[in-house]
Every structure is written in C-alpha cells, then in structure tokens.
C-alpha cells in the first residue's frame, strides 16, 4: 500500500472548500438516479448544504494561511476573500434556481452537481499558486459552465449559447495554455511566485524581460480576458448570457469573473509586477474598449437580459480601471468591486429569472411596464440593483466605483478615470430606462404576476441587504479587502 504522505493530510484544510464541493457534487451525481423526478429538488437542498459547508470551511481555511501541496495552492487572505465571493455567488444562484428549474421542467440533479463543480473550479482559480493548477481550475469551471449554459435543452437559444461558449471558450483556454508554455520556456518555472524571481533576475542580468515571457503574458491575457469578458474578447458574452438559463447567467456573470480576476491579479501583479510597464497600456486600452463597447451596445438593447449582459461587460471595464492602478490599493479596490458587483448582478439576474416566467418569454423592456404597481416589492428590489449598477451613492456599486477611481487616481491615471466617469453617465441611461418602464409606463393588461418562491425571496433579500450594507457600512469589508491585498505579496 502506498503510504499517504503526512504533508498532504496536514494540508487538507487549505483545500477544504474544493474538497467539500466536489464530494457533495459526486454524492449528488450518484444519488441522482435513485431520486424520483418529483423529489429532485431535494438534491438542490443537498447542493445548498454543500455550498454552505464549503463557506464554513473557508473560515477554517482563513485561520491557518499558508501554502499546500508543494506550493501549488496558496490559502492566503486573498484566496479567502475570493472564495467567499464565488461560493456566496453559488449559494445565491442555487437559491434562485429551485423555482426556475421547476417552471422550466428541467429540475435535475446534474444541474446542481455542475454548479458545485464549477464553483470548486473557481475556488482553485482563486487559490492557485501555479499556472497549470490554475489551468485545471479554469477548465473545471469552464466545462461545467458550458454544460450549464445549454441546460434548457429544448430552447434553441440555450443550445446556441452552450455551443458558442464551448467553441470560443476552448480557444481561449488554449491561448492560456500556450501562454503558460511560453512563460515556462522563458523562466523555467510555472510557479507564480518563482516567475517573479526569475524575471527580476532576468532584468538584473540582461537589463530587460525576455520577449518570450511578454508574449506568454499577452497570450494569457487573451485567455483570461475572455473569461472576465473584456474587450476585444467579449463578442461571445451577450449571446451566451442571453441564451443560458437566467440563474446560470447570474452565476456566470459573477463567479467566474471574480475567480478569473483573482488569477489575473496574481499573475499580473505578483509574477509580472516587474513588467508592469508592458501590461499597463494593454490593460488601459482594453479597459477603455470594454467600457465603450459595453455601455454603448447596452443603450440600444430592448431585451433586458441582453442589456444586463452588456452591462456586465461595462463593469469588467470599471474593474480594469482599478486593475490598471498596479498598487495594493488597486487590488483592494478590485476585490471590493468584485464583491459588490457579484451581489448586485446576481440580484438583478434573479429578478429577471423570475419575471421572465416560463420559457423566458417576458424579457423585453415593454414587459416591465407598470411593474412598480403590480409587484411593488420586486420592483423596488430591482430598482435597487439597477441603481447600484448605475453607481448611486448608498449602494455597493457606488463605493466600488469610488474606490476603483480613487486607486487609479492614486497612480496618476487621470484620463482613464475621466473616461470611466463619463461612461458611467452613459450607463445610467439604460439602467434608468428600465426604471422608467417599471414606474412611469402604464401596466400591460396581459401580465399576470406569479408568486415569488420563498427561496428566491431569501436570495433577493440577501443580495439587496448586502448591496445596501456595502454601500453604507463598507468599513469592515474594505478592511478585509486591504488585508487580502497585502497578503498577495507575502512570502
């Protein structure tokens, strides 16, 4: 019998969330055939228990930071913060899925299992200290979400989304992998912290960074930029977000984005921190393009789901503004933004998931006419999320933007901030238009409101309370984000 290495045992808790998520995922897969069709929802509750247990284990992980498994995984405050976001996103998405899957008649066990596997993949992305490990995490989350995007099998749009996501996503991950190979060729290592040392040495010896490493970084930017949906790699996103089942869209828009941004922070800041002058302009240009494409395309949408898809592109642009700062204030700003963004975006998509009704047929802006009088509480909730996305004070979205701008200004990146600011005014137009429809238009006669399921109510309440909490009392979360930012560089 092969002896089980003691080190591996001692490190379990540093990978605990992923282990728990995968175990629950496997249990659900195994149990699925034995559960009657009418009781499939029980598997959902099992998945919810799994995510909650994983969330609890993040707490354990936080108590003992360090590296695990030959330095492949880093369980630092940074990883903890991102874990909390992605697992929290999964909790909300699962809560929002129960009723939706029933309505669509696709209540199945593998749905929940895939959500858990995807979340585990995102967790690995957040904690990866080595590029190939990160690649595994990326594939885990990607492949699960490819399937999830096509989960409404009978809907043409859903099939299109899945296929498009799969084909283009495979390209993107291939780019990422190719980038890893080149960086390995240039530096002789795939460990994020060792790359940094190698590059510093390279600069000391040759006075510059090898172009192979820069090329590798560029390819990785393509691959990761695809996942976080920044221009010019954003083309797939609106179709995929629109076609995917809405609770899946909620997850797609928040979890993978947070996890991949976390990996980008590690690679760009830690590994290539010394090559900041190489990537700064790439990020700058990409940020500007992302904001412009996202906002101006969103203006002309009449489908609210598609509009929110473009809005999430625009928000990736605002995050890049903080990303461009290149300082630990910038990291904290990115983290805070990701947390606020996840809450408001999931909230908004879950509201849409409910209002779309069976077959997702009520997604046009005209379908929202008079919602303010028909379903006042839901309308207030949706307005809150929209206003937060818009960046109105007292909401998390405002402070996210504020800290992002502040971080960029602190690094003297003035014009990018001005462009971002003007963009956010452009953005306010299309968010407000939905509010106009909900409150100022006459209600449409044929609309019969359906009851909001308790689980969805609960999810929306958490998202709304979180959005307000981050907007009014951000001190604690900001503090944790700063600690997380500092932990990124710790050896």
């Amino acid at each position, binding site marked *: 019998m092969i002896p089980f290495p003691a080190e591996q045992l001692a490190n379990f808790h540093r990978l605990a969330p992923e282990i728990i998520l995968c175990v629950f995922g496997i249990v659900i897969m195994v149990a699925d055939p034995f559960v009657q069709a009418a009781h499939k929802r029980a598997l959902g509750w099992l998945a919810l228990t799994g995510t909650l247990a994983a969330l609890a284990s993040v707490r354990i992980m936080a108590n003992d930071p360090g590296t695990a498994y030959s330095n492949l995984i880093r369980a630092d405050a940074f990883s903890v913060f991102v874990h909390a976001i992605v697992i929290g996103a999964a909790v909300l998405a699962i809560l929002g899925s129960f009723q939706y899957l029933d309505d669509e008649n696709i209540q199945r066990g593998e749905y929940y299992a895939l959500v858990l596997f995807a979340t585990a993949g995102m967790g690995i992305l957040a904690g990866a200290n080595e590029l190939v490990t990160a690649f595994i995490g990326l594939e885990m989350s990607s492949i699960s979400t490819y399937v999830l995007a096509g989960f409404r099998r009978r809907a043409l749009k859903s099939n299109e989304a899945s296929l498009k996501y799969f084909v283009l996503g495979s390209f993107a991950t291939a780019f990422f992998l190719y980038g890893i190979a080149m960086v390995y060729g240039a530096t002789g290592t795939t460990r994020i912290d060792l790359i940094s040392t190698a590059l510093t040495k390279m600069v000391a010896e040759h006075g510059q960074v090898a172009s192979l490493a820069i090329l590798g970084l560029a390819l990785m930017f393509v691959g990761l930029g695809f996942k976080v949906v920044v221009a010019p790699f954003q083309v797939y996103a609106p179709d995929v977000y629109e076609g995917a089942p809405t609770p899946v869209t909620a997850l797609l828009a928040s979890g993978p984005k947070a996890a991949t941004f976390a990996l980008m922070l590690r690679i760009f800041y830690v590994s290539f921190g010394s090559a900041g002058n190489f990537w700064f302009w790439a990020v700058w240009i990409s940020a500007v393009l992302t904001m412009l494409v996202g906002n101006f395309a969103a203006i002309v949408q009449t489908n609210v789901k598609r509009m929110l898809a473009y809005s999430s592109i625009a928000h990736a642009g605002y995050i890049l503004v903080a990303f461009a700062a290149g300082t630990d204030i910038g990291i904290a700003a990115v983290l805070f933004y990701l947390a606020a963004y996840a809450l408001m975006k999931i909230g908004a998509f879950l509201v849409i998931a409910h209002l779309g009704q069976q077959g997702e047929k009520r997604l046009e802006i005209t379908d929202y006419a008079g919602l303010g009088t028909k379903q006042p509480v839901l309308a207030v909730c949706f307005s809150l999320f929209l206003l937060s996305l818009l960046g109105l*004070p007292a909401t998390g979205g405002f402070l996210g933007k504020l800290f992002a701008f*502040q971080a960029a200004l602190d690094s003297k990146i003035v014009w990018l901030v001005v462009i971002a600011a003007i963009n956010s005014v452009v953005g306010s137009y299309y968010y407000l238009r939905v509010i106009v429809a909900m*409150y100022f238009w006459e209600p449409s006669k044929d609309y019969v409101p359906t009851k909001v399921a308790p689980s969805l109510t609960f999810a929306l309440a958490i998202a709304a309370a979180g959005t307000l909490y981050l907007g009014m009392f951000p001190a604690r979360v900001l503090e944790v984000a700063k600690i997380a930012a500092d932990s990124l560089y710790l050896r």
Partner: protein
Amino acid sequence: MPSHLLTVITFLPLLGVPALLFLRSNDHAWIRRIALTISVVEFVLSLGLLLKFDAVNAQYQYEEYYDWIGRANIHYHLGVDGISLFLVLLTTFLTPLAILCSWQAIRENVKGFFIALLVIETAMIGVFVSLDLLLFFFFWELTLIPMYFLIGIWGHDRRIYAALKFILYTMFGSILMLVAILWLYNLAGTFDVPDIQAKLQTGLVLLPSHTELLLFGAFFLAFAIKVPLFPLHTWLPDAHTEAPTAGSVILAGVMLKLGTYGMLRFCLPLFPDAAHRMAPYIGVLAIIGIVYGAMVATVQHDLKRLVAYTSVSHLGFVVLGIFAFSTISIQGAIFQMLSHGISTGALFLGVGMLYDRRHTHEIKEFGGLVNPMPVLMSFFLFIALSSLALPPLNGFIGEFLILIGTFQSHHAWAAWAASGAVLSAIYLLWAYQRVALGDVTVEKNRSLPDASGRERLILVTMAIAIVFMGVASPLFTRRMEVSTNNLLHQMDRVQSVSRPATPEPGGKQTAIAPKPHENESLATISLRHVQP
C-alpha cells in the same frame, strides 16, 4: 455636550418614510397628515438652529464629527455657518407648503409621492450641512432619484422625457465632480472641507495652477448645470414645466440653490485663483442668462414655462453676485437665493392652483381671472411684485445688494444686469395683465372658485415670508456677514499663498481682486440705506 440637532434635522424626514410605509396605501388622509406633521415639526426644530447660532462667529457651528468609513478616511461631519443656515431654513419652510399644495392635486400613489418629498428634504438638508466632500456627494446624488420619480410619475404629459433629461444632465456634471473630489483627496489626503481649506491656506498643499483650473472646472460644471448657468439651462424649462406643483416648488425653491451654494462653499474658497481667472467669463455667462432668460420668459405662452425661465434670469443674478467677489454682492447673492426660493416657489404654487382648476398652463386659456377669484389673483399680483423686485419686498433687497456689490468692481456688468430687473417687470406684469385683468375671455373661467381655506393658508404664509424678508432683512444679512467676510478672507489668503507675489501680466487680476476690508463697512452702511 455636543449637539445632535443637525443630525436630527437632517434625518427626521427620513423617519417619516417607515411611518408612512406602515399605513395602508389608500388611507390618503392619514398619509397626508403624517407627512405634514413631520415637515412642520421639522420646520420648528430647524428654527431652533437660530437660538444658539452665534452671528459673530465665522466658524462652523453645531458641528458633529464621527468616523464613518475609517479606512477610506470618510467622516460624518456636519456643521452650518451663515451661508448654509438660512438655506436649511428655506428647505424646511418650503417642504410643508409643498406638501400642503399637493393635498388635493395628488390622487394616485399618494404614499409614494409623500415618501419622495420627505426623502428629498433629507437629501437637500444633507447637502447644505455636510462638511465632508463624500458625504456631500452622497446627499447630492440622493436628491436626484426622488425628484426623478416626482417628475416621472406625477408629472404632466412630457414627464418621462423631462425626467430623463433632468437626471442625465445632472449626473453628467456630478460624476466629473466626483473625479475632482477624488483627485483633491489624493492631493490633500482628506475629504474634510475645513481641513482641506486649512491645508490650502497654510500652503501645506499646493495646487499647480492648471490642476486648480481643472478641479475648479469639474466642480463648477456640476454646479453650473444645477443652477443652471446660461448654456447649460436647457433641462430646466422641461423639468419645471412637467413636474407636479410640489416638484416645481422644491426644484425652483431649493434644488437650484444647491448649485449656487456649491459655488460658494467649494469653488470659491478651495480654488480662488481659478475662480478669479474664470470670473470674467462666468460673469458674462451670468449676464447673458439674466437677459436671455428674461427675454425668453417674455414670449412664453405657457404660464409655468414662463415662471421657469424667470429662474434662469434670477439665478443669473446670484451667480453674478458670487463672482463679483465683494461682501455686499455675495451677501446679496445669498439673500437672493432665499428670496428667489420664496417668490418663485410662491409663483409656482399660484400657477399650480390655477392648474388645479383648469388643468392647463396656457395663458390664452385665462384672462380676467380677477373677476371670479379676487383673493387668489391679488395674492398672485403680490407675489409677482416680490419676484420683480419691488421695494420693500424681499426680491428687491437681494437684487439691489448684488447690483451695488457688482457695480463697485464692474460698472458694465452692473449696468447690463440692471436691464434684467427692468425686463422682469415687463414679463411678469404683462403675464399678470393677460391672466388676470380685463374681461373674462373664456366662458369656463367665469365660475371658477376662489382660493379655498387651505390655499389661503399657503398664500398668506408666503406673503408673510415675503414681507418679513423684505422688512427685516438685517436679521438675515447680519448672520451672513461674518461668514461671507470669512469666505473672502479665505480666498484672499489662499491666493497669496498659492501664488507668488509677482502680479500676472496684463493687470487683469488686479482689476477684479476682492476688497473685503473696504467692503465690510460699506455693507453695513448700504444696508442701513436700503432699509425703509
């Protein structure tokens, strides 16, 4: 023991929101009563500010200072001085009247309407009392959303267009101001207004002149849109005309002053150099606004639109007074802010009463109204006279002080601006003539009821305020004077620190330099002359 009066005043209206939420939404009577009670209590409480207000103290009073977001250095810092004190009172005075005037006019979604009004009140007071730039920005943006709903839900025919235009215009300005606020923070290391002022005055923080100009520009743009200054005014006629009466009263009465208040509180003391450099251009824009607003008002055939354009004209006076940089003109500007709030608020209330009866604002639909409703029309004339600055009513004091103060430094400016005063007599009296005098031209108007008890209460309150402000103006100016002088001193000192002694070439600078020391005595003298 620190006083929490400002916190109470700021957030009391917000307390009304849960109270209203608990009522059934068709229980209109109690919703109205509770909203009115809260706003009246609020007014009484705000009068309490006068009790311990020290008129000879140039510092902020009733200060409150707590940590809010520690890591980001954002504080909860409130305080009032002679500039903001009366603006708070103006807000608390107009809100109950706005609630009263909506008593019958608003019949749908009554609960939402009064909630919006109360939230606006909190937001506006918050803007006036905040001494932390970010706190200020919070309240500044908070004013937008309820007003957006007020216009969009309870407004007239083109309400959606007007609401969107209003909010997009304002947001465009304020987002650039946010960038400027953050930039200022990066330079000064704090959001605290008095702190930043102190750092600028002592030279701890030096603003390079082009930076100062950009920062000034960003702040000024936000405020100029709100005021609105001449080329940026196009949102105003739409928003004012389409808003429900209460919305117009709040909008014209208080919200426009957020802009001029911002200029006084931030643009002048923080960026004095840039303010001086830009003053000639701003002055010209203000004068164009005065004359242009008056001329456009003259040719309006919609009564409410006419009143809306008078705001462009009157607020031009205020901006002119601010950028003439003398104690008298600035005092006049603050006074004009108050009296414009009262008179234009009253004009909108009157127009709203006509609208309640006839559901139109078209002037040609009226005519000879003095016959069926003598009381309402007499008050209307009285208000119009106050708005066109007839002595000894309130409008006169403000305009007169602005003109004297401006005349000291800029003869031509004062001359041009004075023509606006003449024009205002033309458009208001002509409009009054067409609406009220002569024979009844439209048969329907013959049977219109005169002012009801509730309306008389509103009109009498307004009339008392108009006379009181006109006759007892020293009560106001005395409390403004020290703060105004302090403001000018600050500008003076900051200027001498941030700019070396070498005068600018061309001698332009000297022509418009403030002379606060001479002005102090002049102010008191002229005020005595002004009083009847």
